């Protein structure tokens, strides 16, 4: 059986994290994103420019039909929304063709990544967490370990893990029984190789098992974990792993999650996700041909 190093070393087929995402990650870890950096990222990318223009001129931003230049659009959207748009678009190619290992349709992993990110941002704002953009980014990248398993094993993955699935065992438990590590641990190792900040790599490690007590406890991990579970309820990327995951009790209590809150988040996430998909379907060539 391959170890983590075998898998990550053999990943020629897995696209590297785009430089733009690395820059934004670094900006987020160090404080606020710079508008000029975001504008620079957009200027060199025709599809991204189109997406930004469509967002700025959409109903969501209040004055449909008005025509804004790129610079006006960036100012109009604000740094936080701009960053979200750039991240969504720049990671779409990475996630687009993946998912066969988990029995997912094309595009489902990207939809899950973005849907989870939208939910995490909303949870962060609800919890007054100082860093909703960071929560968005961490949730967006939480399942990069699935990308790695997918790229290395492809459809063979399912045969390796399914014999370890038990009714009372989480799917990450089945992965650990099959491979000695799970997709969260593999994703964290990939994040470290991409030189992402340690807190982001840890968030990926703990997105299914957030630590309950100090010093390891971090509200960011709780938020991303809860967003992942809410994503399951929302029907995002439910593949061969089904619903074999658990919401940590301390997260339910700590974030004051209840059924009505979860249902409202599910409905809101889908609204935003559809809006994102609608705009990207018109502006990102590889999505149109998917």
């Amino acid at each position, binding site marked *: 059986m391959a170890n983590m190093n075998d898998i990550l070393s053999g990943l020629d087929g897995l696209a590297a994290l785009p430089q733009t995402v690395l820059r934004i990650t670094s900006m987020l870890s160090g404080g606020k994103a710079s508008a000029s950096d975001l504008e620079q990222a957009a200027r060199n990318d025709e599809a991204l420019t189109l997406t930004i223009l469509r967002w700025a001129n959409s109903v969501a931003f209040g004055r449909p039909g008005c025509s804004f230049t790129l610079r006006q659009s960036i100012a109009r959207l604000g740094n936080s929304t701009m960053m979200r748009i750039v991240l969504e678009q720049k990671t779409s190619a990475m996630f687009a063709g993946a998912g066969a290992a988990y*029995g*997912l*349709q094309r595009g*489902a992993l990207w939809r899950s990544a973005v849907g989870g990110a939208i939910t995490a941002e909303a949870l962060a704002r609800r919890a007054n967490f100082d860093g909703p953009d960071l929560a968005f980014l961490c949730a967006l990248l939480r399942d990069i370990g699935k990308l790695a398993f997918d790229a290395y094993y492809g459809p063979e993955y*399912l045969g390796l893990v*399914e014999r370890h699935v038990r*009714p*009372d065992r*989480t799917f990450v438990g089945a992965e650990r029984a099959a491979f000695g590590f799970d997709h969260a641990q593999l994703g964290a190792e990939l994040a470290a190789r991409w030189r992402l900040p340690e807190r982001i790599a840890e968030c990926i490690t703990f997105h299914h098992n957030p630590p309950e007590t100090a010093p390891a406890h971090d509200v960011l991990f709780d938020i991303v974990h809860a967003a992942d*579970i809410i994503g*399951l*309820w*929302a*029907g*995002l*990327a*439910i*593949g*061969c*792993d*089904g*619903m*074999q*995951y*658990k*919401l940590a*009790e301390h997260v*339910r209590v700590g974030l004051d*999650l*209840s*059924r*009505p809150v*979860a*249902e*409202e988040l*599910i*409905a809101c996430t*889908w*609204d935003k996700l*559809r809006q994102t*998909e609608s705009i990207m379907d018109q502006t990102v060539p590889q999505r149109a041909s998917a």
Partner: protein
Amino acid sequence: MASSAPSYSKTEVEGKLVVGVGDLVVSRDPEALLVTYALGSCIGVTVYDPIAKVGGLLHFMLPSADLNKEKAAANPAMFGDSGIPLLFKSCYDLGAVKGRLIVCAAGGAEVLADDGHFKIGSRNRTLIRKIFWKNNILIAGDETGGTNSRTLSMRMADGTSIVRTQGSERVLWPT
């Protein structure tokens, strides 16, 4: 010819009419295969009139439109109590007759150790039973609950409804 209610994510892939999450499709095209993927706690409902050869598939997420009336008005297929009536009405509009409709359902799974705090899948299961019981409609075939992801499909030529999960497949109707 396929026809659909307001649709957000329906796509046609290799002859399949793919019904997205919170969406429904109705059809009277005998060549069509309606399919919906990734049913977790969501529920997929198929209806089929074998005489008119009209049918539809709904994939709803949450039980009650009371959660948000505005969202339910914009997208009734998101909720069971607004999506199911719309599914039936859309089939009637294409010539289906209530007394002949064959109904199947799949989905309504739960995450592990929910401990009764959320029960999203269970509430969806309760909702369909309540609606169909109140309207004197029997569910001809169903596979709900558990923790697995399911794919539900229906062949418009004869209404055959099939649920697939973890590599296995079961015909819900005809039984």
